[in-house]
C-alpha cells in the first residue's frame, strides 16, 4: 500500500528525469570522480605496504587521537548545542540576533585564523589558558587543546540541526502533558527530548564529520607532537611534504572509509530512534 503511494508520488513529481539526471551528474563531477581519484592513487602501494604504513605506532596514535577527540567533541557539541538551541527557540531576549550570528562564526572564519585565536586564548599566558594554568592544567599543545578546537568547529552543526526541530514541536503537546500533571522535568524527559533526539544525533554526526578531517584550526593548538598530539590530517600533510602521494592518499582514503562508516552507523541509529520514538 505504502509502496504504491510512494510510486504514485514519484511519478507526479515534475521533471523527475531532469532533476535526477542533474543530481547524478553533480554528484559524479563534484564528489565521486575526485574521491575515486583518491583511491586510484593509493593503488600505487601494494596491500602489504598499505597495511605496514597504516599500522605504524605513530599512525595508529594519530588515528586514535583524531577519531577519539572528534567523538568527544561531537558529544560535547551535542549537549551544548541542545542547550543553546533551547535558549534561542524558547526565549526572546535582548541581543538574541547577535548570539544567532555568533554561532555561525566557526563556519565563516578561515580555520587557520580560528586556530591562532584559540591558541592565543588557551596558551599558558592567554586570557582563558592562564586560569587553567593556575590549576596546573595545560590546554594549548595538549590533547585537551585539540578537543577544544574540534568543539569549536563542530558547534554550529549541533545547534542548527536541533533548532528547527525544537521550534516545530507543538506547544500543545507540552501543555497536554502539563495538564495531565507532569512536572517540567518529566515533560522534558518524556515528551520533548524524544522528539529532538534524532536531530541531536544528526547534529552530533555532522559535528563529528567536520571534526575528523579538521586541519587548519588544530595544527596551531595541538603542538604536533608525534605519538601525543599529532592528528591524521597533519600526517597526510607530512607525507605530501615528502612528495609521498601514495602514502598520503592511503591515509586519506582510510580516514574517508572510517568516517563514512561512522556516518552510516549514526544514520542508522538516528533512523532507529525516529522509528522507536514515534508512537
Amino acid at each position, binding site marked *: 500500500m505504502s509502496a504504491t503511494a510512494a510510486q504514485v508520488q514519484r511519478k507526479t513529481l515534475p521533471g523527475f528525469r531532469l532533476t535526477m539526471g542533474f543530481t547524478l551528474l553533480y554528484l559524479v563531477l563534484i564528489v565521486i570522480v575526485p574521491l575515486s581519484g583518491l583511491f586510484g592513487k593509493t593503488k600505487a602501494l601494494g596491500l602489504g605496504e598499505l597495511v605496514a604504513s597504516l599500522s605504524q605506532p*605513530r599512525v595508529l596514535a594519530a588515528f586514535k587521537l583524531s577519531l577519539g577527540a572528534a567523538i568527544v567533541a561531537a558529544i560535547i557539541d551535542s549537549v551544548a548545542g541542545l542547550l543553546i538551541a533551547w535558549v534561542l527557540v524558547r526565549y526572546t531576549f535582548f541581543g538574541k540576533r547577535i548570539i544567532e550570528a555568533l554561532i555561525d562564526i566557526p563556519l565563516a572564519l578561515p580555520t587557520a585564523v580560528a586556530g591562532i585565536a584559540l591558541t*592565543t586564548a588557551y596558551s599558558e599566558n592567554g586570557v582563558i589558558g592562564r586560569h587553567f594554568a593556575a590549576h596546573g592544567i595545560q590546554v594549548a*599543545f595538549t590533547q585537551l587543546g585539540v578537543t577544544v578546537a574540534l568543539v569549536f568547529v563542530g558547534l554550529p552543526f549541533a545547534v542548527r540541526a536541533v533548532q528547527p526541530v525544537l521550534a516545530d514541536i507543538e506547544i500543545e503537546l507540552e501543555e497536554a502533558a502539563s495538564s495531565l500533571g507532569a512536572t517540567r522535568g518529566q515533560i522534558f524527559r518524556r515528551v520533548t527530548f524524544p522528539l529532538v533526539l534524532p536531530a541531536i544525533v544528526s547534529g552530533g554526526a555532522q559535528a563529528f564529520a567536520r571534526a575528523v578531517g579538521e586541519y587548519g584550526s588544530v595544527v596551531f593548538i595541538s*603542538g604536533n607532537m*608525534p605519538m601525543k598530539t599529532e592528528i591524521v590530517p597533519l600526517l597526510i600533510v*607530512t607525507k605530501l611534504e*615528502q612528495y609521498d602521494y601514495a602514502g598520503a592518499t592511503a591515509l586519506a582514503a582510510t580516514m574517508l572509509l572510517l568516517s563514512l562508516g561512522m556516518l552510516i552507523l549514526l544514520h542508522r541509529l538516528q533512523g532507529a530512534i525516529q522509528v522507536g520514538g514515534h508512537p
Partner: protein
Amino acid sequence: MKTNVRRRFTWLTWTVLGLVALAAGVLAIVFRSDNALAGDGSLLNVSYDPTRELYQDYNSAFAKYWKGKSGQNISVRQSHGGSGKQARSVIDGLEADVVTLALAYDIQEIAERTKLLPDNWQSRLPNNSAPYTSTIVFLVRKGNPRGIKDWPDLIKPGTVVVTPSPKTSGGARWNYLAAWGWALKQNGGNEAAARDYVTKLYKNVPVLDSGARGATITFVKHGIGHVLIAWENEALLAINEMGKDNFEIVAPPQTILAEPPVAILDKNVDKHGTRAAAEEYVRYLYSEEGQDIAAKHYYRPRNAAVFAKHASRFPNVQTFTIDDLFGGWNKAQKTHFADGAIFDQIYQPK
C-alpha cells in the same frame, strides 16, 4: 493573493537569472583579460611565504627595467604559500613561468616529476641559482635572560627552544641542518656527536609548529620558549614589526648558509612565449638593483659591493653549506627527514 505570490516569484526568478548572467559575464571578462595578459607579457612567479614583500618590490622594479630594455609592458603575478605546497601546485599543473622557493629540494622534485626544467637547473645561474642567501639565527627575549650566545646554550637543561617541525616545514629543515652541521664541525666531531647534540636539542622543543610563521607566533605572541630558531630575514622582520624593545637577535658564530634558489620552467615559458622575459627576470635578481632590493628585505645579497652597503644589518657569521656537509638536498632529505629517518628516530617526546 495567489497571483501576487506568483508574480513575486517570477520577479525573483528574473532577478536571480540576471545576477547569474552578470556573474558569468564578469567571470568571462576576468578570465579573458587574464589570458590576454598572458599573451601580452605576463609572468607567474610561484614563490614561498616570506618573500611576498620582496617580490612586490622587485616586480615593479623589473617591469620598469624590462620596459626600458624591450619596450614591452610586463606584469608579474605572484603566488605565495608553504614552499613544498607551492612545488606540489606546480607539479599538479599550475603553469608557473618562474619558481623561487625555499629549498633546492622542492625545485628538484619539480624537475624529476614533471621534466618542466632540466636536471642541471641549479647550475644554470651563478651561485647555485641562489641570488640571495640567508642564515639561521636565534631570536631571544630582550636582555637575553638565559645568556644564549651559541649552539651549546640551546641544549642546556631547562632551556625551551621553539622551532617548527622539519617534517612539514622547509624552513625548519634549514634549522635542523644548521644545528647538525654545527655539531658535526666541532673539534673534529663525528656523526654520533652530531646526532647526540640534535637529540638533546629537540628534547628542549615542547611544541612543533607546522610552519615557520606558526613557530614565530608561538614564541612571540604566546610567550612560549626562551629562544626561537629562525631564518635571519624572518627574525629581522619580526623584530622590526613587533618591537626592538621585546626581542633581540643572537647570531651564532657558525651557522648554515641558507640558499633559496630560483629557476625558470622551460616547458612553460616556451609554451607561453615568455622565455626572454623569464630568463631576464631571474638574471636581473643578480643585478645591483635586484641585490639592493633583496638586502632591503633582509636577504643577504651575493654582490660584495651591495653587501658592504648594507653590512650593518647583517651580523658577521661563518657559514657552511648543504653541499659541503650533507652532499646536497636529496641526500639530506633521505638521511634526515624521510619517514623513519634520523629525525623520526631521535624525536620521541617523553
